[in-house]
């Protein structure tokens, strides 16, 4: 089992939301992580994945069948709930409103990406402050690095997939070059982190 300092465990216990960002090479890992989440998962999860702009995905429907948590596309002005995984829809950024609702935004792409991981990570950090766990996985550009480091700067828990094991290392490496993420995890440890989140929150309950 993942061995974490008390300090990190404390921050996991304090977290109110989990963010996952990925691009090329990270999709199947994200799908495995989502289907791995136990029913009653204590946090809401927002997944930002780069995808083609006119791509109508049925991935969420497929994942919903295989998952123990709710899986859906993020909708505009939707209340953010625990035990739910929200995927950013193609061609829209996902933002967090101060009332802990989601907003969609069709403004300029960032790093040529819409949805952009940076946009969501920064917006969620502005609302949830330090109570954020953000995980950046494999990807072929630097989107997400700025957002992850922004979260780290606000004392949220910043996590990257070890670039050595990432299918495409550019994205996690960009974060590593820019700041010191709290945790650099191999794939197995990423799943153990999900276990930890569930366990630590249930203990609190």
């Amino acid at each position, binding site marked *: 089992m993942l061995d974490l300092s008390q300090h990190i465990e404390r921050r996991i216990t304090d977290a109110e939301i989990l963010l996952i960002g990925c691009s090329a090479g990270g999709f199947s890992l994200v799908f495995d992580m989502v289907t791995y989440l136990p029913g009653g998962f204590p946090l809401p999860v927002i997944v930002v994945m780069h995808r083609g702009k*006119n791509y109508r995905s049925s991935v969420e429907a497929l994942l919903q069948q295989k998952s123990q948590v709710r899986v859906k596309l993020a*909708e*505009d*002005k939707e209340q953010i709930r625990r035990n739910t995984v929200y995927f950013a*829809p193609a061609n*829209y950024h996902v*933002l*967090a*409103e*101060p009332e802990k609702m989601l*907003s*969609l*935004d*069709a*403004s*300029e792409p960032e790093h040529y990406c819409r949805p952009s991981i940076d*946009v969501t990570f920064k*917006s969620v950090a*502005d*609302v949830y402050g330090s109570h954020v766990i953000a995980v950046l996985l494999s990807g072929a550009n630097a989107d997400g690095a*700025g957002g992850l*480091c922004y979260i780290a700067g606000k004392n949220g828990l910043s996590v990257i997939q070890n670039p050595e094991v990432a299918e495409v290392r550019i994205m996690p490496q960009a974060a590593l070059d*820019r700041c010191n993420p709290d945790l650099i995890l191999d794939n197995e440890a990423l799943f153990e982190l999900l276990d930890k989140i569930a366990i630590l929150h249930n203990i609190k309950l």
Partner: protein
Amino acid sequence: MEGSTTYTITFNELNELTELVYKIYGLDLTGYAKASLKRRVTRLMHVKHLPLFDLRSVLINDPDFFDEFLAGITVNVTEMFRDPDFYKAFREKVLPYLASFQRIKIWNAGCSSGEELYSFAILLYEEQLYKRAFLYGTDINTRVIEQAKKGIYNLRSMKQYSENYQASGAIHSLSEYYIAKYDAACILQKLKKHTLFSVHNLVSDGVFNEFQVIVCRNVLIYFDIEQQQKIIDLFYNSLCMLGFLCLGSKESLRSDELKNRFRIIDRIENIYQKIA
């Protein structure tokens, strides 16, 4: 990211800025979704190199800056035939119905620089409905309205727009509708003849005509739920009976009361018809 902290604004500071803008210019931004607005203001601060203190003082002291501010905080990203599937649905499910109307008045609310409105002009033209049609484009921004009136776009964007047009079930080539001059694409006069662009604020301005079609795509998402509902009421009151309302693919009618007054024409593309 150097000096990025200089160009940040908290939600509290954003509220203060909103109050300031209302006091000086009478523009009410309270119904805007805070997260998007915050992102817009932060972006403007970056682009103009204005930390919050300077942004406030230039707003107070330079009335000419206000247009620029307004253009900066609203989203003006648009394309011709953006979301080709939407246009395809409109072509197949709405146009045949419109052919039975004597007059076809279309309101494109939040028209930005006009690309969407000219896309509708093309659809109507191709169905031989343009003679009977009139297209009104409105936006809160004076600047984009001026661009829309000109109908001159960057020639380079036409490649993407042509792809969109083809994917929307095109029967011609997009190049038949503009003249290329140097690096500009000028929309043909025959498509501009029945168009009118003017400034209209969806928050503070009311009904100004009765329409057979209202198109307002990717505008509602920038408002909070309450304001979205007020705007949809405005659309309801501006539509003739059996008129059509087209929203963005991620926008909806929200209230059950309104859902009873509209029939769904296309669930995925969010096209509705007023039936009560």
